């Protein structure tokens, strides 16, 4: 999946693509409450909805242990949206769940991030979101790690 899209992208665009993958990932993991403070700034541009926010299903597949044979985990709801700013930049979003307003804001953020004020949006929006997500992830790992039980056998009394 990662290899195929890279084919038709020139090498110069590769860092751009990686950066965009990063911010789209951060936006996808963000919470609506975290985007709402930026709502006014995000909507402060003429834009039209190319694809109004819509809810659908996506099949999640996984591999046992990360390397086994693929199997279908189940279906989840996904909301997607595409917006176009007046200057032609097009923003896409795909989010887990059914929050249409959130999807629209995330798509607007993607569009803004492709413009001249990228650095501003990265430092203002993406970096704080990424830090909050890292924190949540670390917390969850710590909580999960505390419940881990290591089984081992000192001596088996068979001999």
């Amino acid at each position, binding site marked *: *999946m990662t290899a*195929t*899209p890279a084919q*038709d992208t020139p090498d110069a665009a590769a860092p751009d693509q990686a950066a965009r993958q990063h911010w789209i990932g951060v936006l996808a993991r963000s919470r609506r409450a975290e985007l709402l403070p930026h709502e006014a700034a995000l909507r402060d541009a003429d834009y*039209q*909805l*190319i*694809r*109004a926010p*819509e809810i659908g299903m996506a099949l999640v597949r996984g591999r046992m242990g990360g390397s086994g044979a693929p199997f279908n985990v189940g279906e989840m709801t996904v909301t997607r949206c*595409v917006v*176009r700013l007046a200057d*032609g930049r*097009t923003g*896409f979003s795909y989010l887990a769940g059914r929050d249409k307003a959130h999807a629209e804001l995330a798509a607007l953020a993607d569009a803004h991030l492709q413009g001249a004020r990228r650095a501003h949006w990265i430092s203002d929006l993406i970096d704080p979101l990424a830090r909050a997500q890292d924190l949540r992830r670390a917390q969850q790992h710590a909580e999960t790690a505390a419940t881990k039980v290591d089984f081992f056998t000192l001596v088996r009394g068979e001999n």
Partner: protein
Amino acid sequence: MSTSLATQSLPASLLQPAFADPVLDAQRSFRAALKALAGPGVAQSLLATQTPPHLEGLAAASHALCLALLDVDTPLWLAPTFDTQAIRANLTFHCGCPIVSDRQNARFALLDDSQLHDLSGFDLGNDRYPDQSCTLLVQLPSLQGGTQLAWQGPGIETRNHVSLPLQEAFWREREARNDFPRGIDVFFVAGSELLGLPRSTQVLLKSQPANLQPSRGAA
């Protein structure tokens, strides 16, 4: 997956909005298509409020039919007139339909009147699955102005008189490929109007009325 890859190679700046209300507008267009095939020769018109915004090269009704009928399971064949970047980008984005270069693999085909002298290659379905034939969407400048022909068959009480601006070659092509239950269904589209011609409709051509309709009411 194929959808996202297909749209990726075309610039996102070509994309434009589709139906204002994706569910209801698609249902209204589908309903119009259903009525057009159920009553061959009677024009159905779509209201301006339920057609999508103008897409360069496509009539309003063609665009609406494409959005209502096409999806990932319906490969589309485009006549050269319609094979533009804007049409490709928007149909693959909004419908997710694969666009094929080979007529044989197409479930739907979008044609203009320059293509109608040759309908070879389109799938006519087979005796077990006649429904798998290719459906033609033919965009015309107008649905009137040609020679008046009488249509009869299922869905028509007596006869419908239709004067589509078509060459005789089209009717010969259609006749040659009509092998009921196999055959081709056609939607003729002009502006925001559409008109259906299912394979079951008999079209009485002036030159050969005796073959199809002996003596009875030769108007």
